[in-house]
């Protein structure tokens, strides 16, 4: 927790130094029916380069100098930025601090004749003074990079990327064998629980389903929490520790079956499930979090993981329930748990010493 706090403190404090980043400007737009609202942020340094705002040329731009140039800046933005044939009104400008300096931040409203399904954005700021300048237009969950002044069509509406993140989530839980084994180890005893101090076959599918639901829910909650805090960058433990930890959690779940130590398997699912969330987040980070829809992609990916694990549970639970009174179940339970314990122990070693 201390580490989380330390990182938070840094996020809130001033940035290290003004980075030497190439020049970027940001336009953020929200489309609501036929009205488009947003803001355009341009670095003061870039505006100075294009318009000579530092009127006394002393290298220090004052708020007074800026205010006297405000009409000139607004005219520059109005001339060089258009959205379809929707007239743009610029609002009252202010300033905003980004990591590489202070930016001019001016709200804008564009009014179209009808609700657009696509926008034609023409962005011509600064390219004539800085060819490496980029205009980043954030709209409807996408970031469109403007590299020159040519008109660019941005399609609005449901973006497909949330769907693709759901697919990735499903795919990951099916391919990531360790998560599934962990879950299966935890639900194996559900059809043969301890009651009144004795192990016996479950009476009804309803009881079994309830316990499994508790386990799955606890696992889901736990890995969702760590997935989120890690995906947004609060905590990112080294992957070696996490991967080894996940393997060890599988060992623990399997050994718990053999020793029958902890009956509150949902608690195991919760505590150790925290580790699995970190594992999921590294996959998500690898996929590249789309900047505009962090929350959407997180939820999509997580939903995919849940769907994937639900499908597996639904497939094997009736099977387990059906064979719970047979020798086959006992064999599966003991041999299966033992095998998983051994295999996962090997994984732990491999991952730690890799």
């Amino acid at each position, binding site marked *: 927790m201390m580490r989380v706090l330390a990182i938070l403190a840094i996020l809130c404090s001033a940035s290290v130094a003004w*980075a030497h980043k*190439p020049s970027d400007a*940001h336009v953020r737009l929200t489309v609501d029916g036929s009205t488009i609202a947003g803001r355009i942020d341009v670095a003061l*340094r870039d505006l100075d380069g294009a318009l000579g705002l530092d009127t006394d040329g002393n290298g220090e*731009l004052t708020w007074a100098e800026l205010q006297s140039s405000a009409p000139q800046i607004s005219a520059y933005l109005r001339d060089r930025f258009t959205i379809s044939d929707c007239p743009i009104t610029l609002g009252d400008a202010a300033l905003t601090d980004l990591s*590489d300096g202070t930016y001019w931040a001016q709200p804008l409203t564009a009014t179209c004749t009808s609700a657009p399904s696509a926008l034609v954005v023409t962005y011509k700021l600064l390219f004539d003074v800085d060819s*490496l300048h980029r205009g980043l237009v954030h709209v409807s969950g996408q970031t469109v990079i403007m590299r020159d002044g040519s008109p660019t069509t941005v399609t609005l509406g449901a973006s497909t990327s949330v769907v693709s993140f759901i697919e990735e989530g499903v795919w990951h839980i099916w391919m990531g064998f360790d998560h599934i084994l962990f879950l299966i180890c935890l639900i194996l005893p559900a059809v043969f629980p301890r009651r009144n101090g004795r192990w016996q076959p479950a009476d009804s599918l309803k009881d079994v389903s309830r316990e499994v639901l508790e386990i799955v829910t606890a696992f889901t909650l736990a890995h969702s929490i760590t997935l989120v805090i890690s995906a947004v960058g*609060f905590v990112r433990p080294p992957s070696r520790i996490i991967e080894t930890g996940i393997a060890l959690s599988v060992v623990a779940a399997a050994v718990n079956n053999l020793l029958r130590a902890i009956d509150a398997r949902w608690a195991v699912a919760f505590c150790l499930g925290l580790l699995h969330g970190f594992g999921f987040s590294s996959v998500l980070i690898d996929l590249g979090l789309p900047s505009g*829809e962090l929350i959407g992609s997180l939820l999509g990916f997580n939903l995919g993981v849940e769907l994937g694990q639900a499908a597996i549970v639904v497939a094997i639970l009736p099977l387990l329930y059906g064979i719970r009174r047979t020798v086959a179940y006992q064999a599966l339970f003991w041999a299966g748990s033992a095998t998983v314990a051994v295999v996962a122990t090997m994984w732990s070693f491999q991952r730690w010493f890799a």
Partner: protein
Amino acid sequence: MTFVRWGRKKLTVLALGALGLAGALTLAAFAAPDHAAFASETYKPGRADEVVAKVPARDPSEVAARRQLASSPERVELAVELARADIQRYRTLSDPRYLGRAQATLARWWKLPDPPPEVLLLRATIEQSIHEFPQARADLDKLVAQNPDDSQAQITRAVVATITADYAAARASCNAVAARAGALVAATCTAPLDGIAGKPDVAYAHLREVLMRSPRANAEIRGWALTALAELAYQLDDTESAMRSLRSALDLDADDAYARNLLADILMVTGHNDEAVKLLAGRDTIDSHLVRLAIASRDAKYVQAMRDRIAAAAERGDRIHLREEARFALAVDGDAPRAARIARDNWAVQKELADARLLAECAAAANDRDAAEPVISWARATGVRDAQLATFFTKLGVGGAR
């Protein structure tokens, strides 16, 4: 440890979990302004005389030149002079805005298939700086075909050809300048080629001797030679000599980012992280310095700053940070497989010794011999000898590079 049935507590814990999830999502929404579509807070300064930004002070002669160019935009010599000054500023400050400005100044000629030679050379220099090596190479080939005696073009061509592993072309360009540019330039030009060709010892002895015989060479060339000498010493595992040469290079030009990075790397490899931090402190505006600061210091502020910068570059579609990204993924995130993937992408763009070491190191950490394959075959083809590379190859179970 025995567990009793938790009974009702179960509900409490699950509820707490749900609360935690909601909390984490809310935090994410607030704390991720750099990632998400949330716009940052705005403000208005309270006083009119408050300084809101530092901008480059205006140079009257430059303003005059720009005004002249604006009134007669066809005057290529004016544009070239202005662009050259901006490229020089880029070199001393590592501020990419100057590079973009130089390109914009040359816009009128930029897209021409055959611009005037002065423009062609600047275009190649800018292309090289933004890692567009094939384009830079094409322009340089054109230049040296027009005028084989253009030393600047030949040296730049040698550098670009070395980066892209076209050693024959690099050597041809080095040979072309040898007669006219002097022994030190010639020896420095071929030093990395001989180093990669498996003769770092011979190249080291030769370059060192030429350097001692050239006390009057200008500082820029001496600095270049000292850095090349250090590279060879490092290849030979003589880190002491390498560090000495690099310190001399930095005495000549404290803004030599290449020499500073190499010195920091050697300090880190030899276990002097604190000295590396001292060497780079206060220079974190430059990405390649910042990534080393983050790794050597593990200071959360540097780590976060580098993370932000990688994210910002990705957002604008830049891929020129692959080296830094791979190092960061390996050393800070401890994610060797991802680091190896990035290092491989980097290797597809540039193939200097540092890039070879990087890919081999990441692949070794990921225990993934296949990922290192391009470097392994490169090492076989060139016969390179390098102490660092040899260590990583040993880890990968590959012979050679010793």
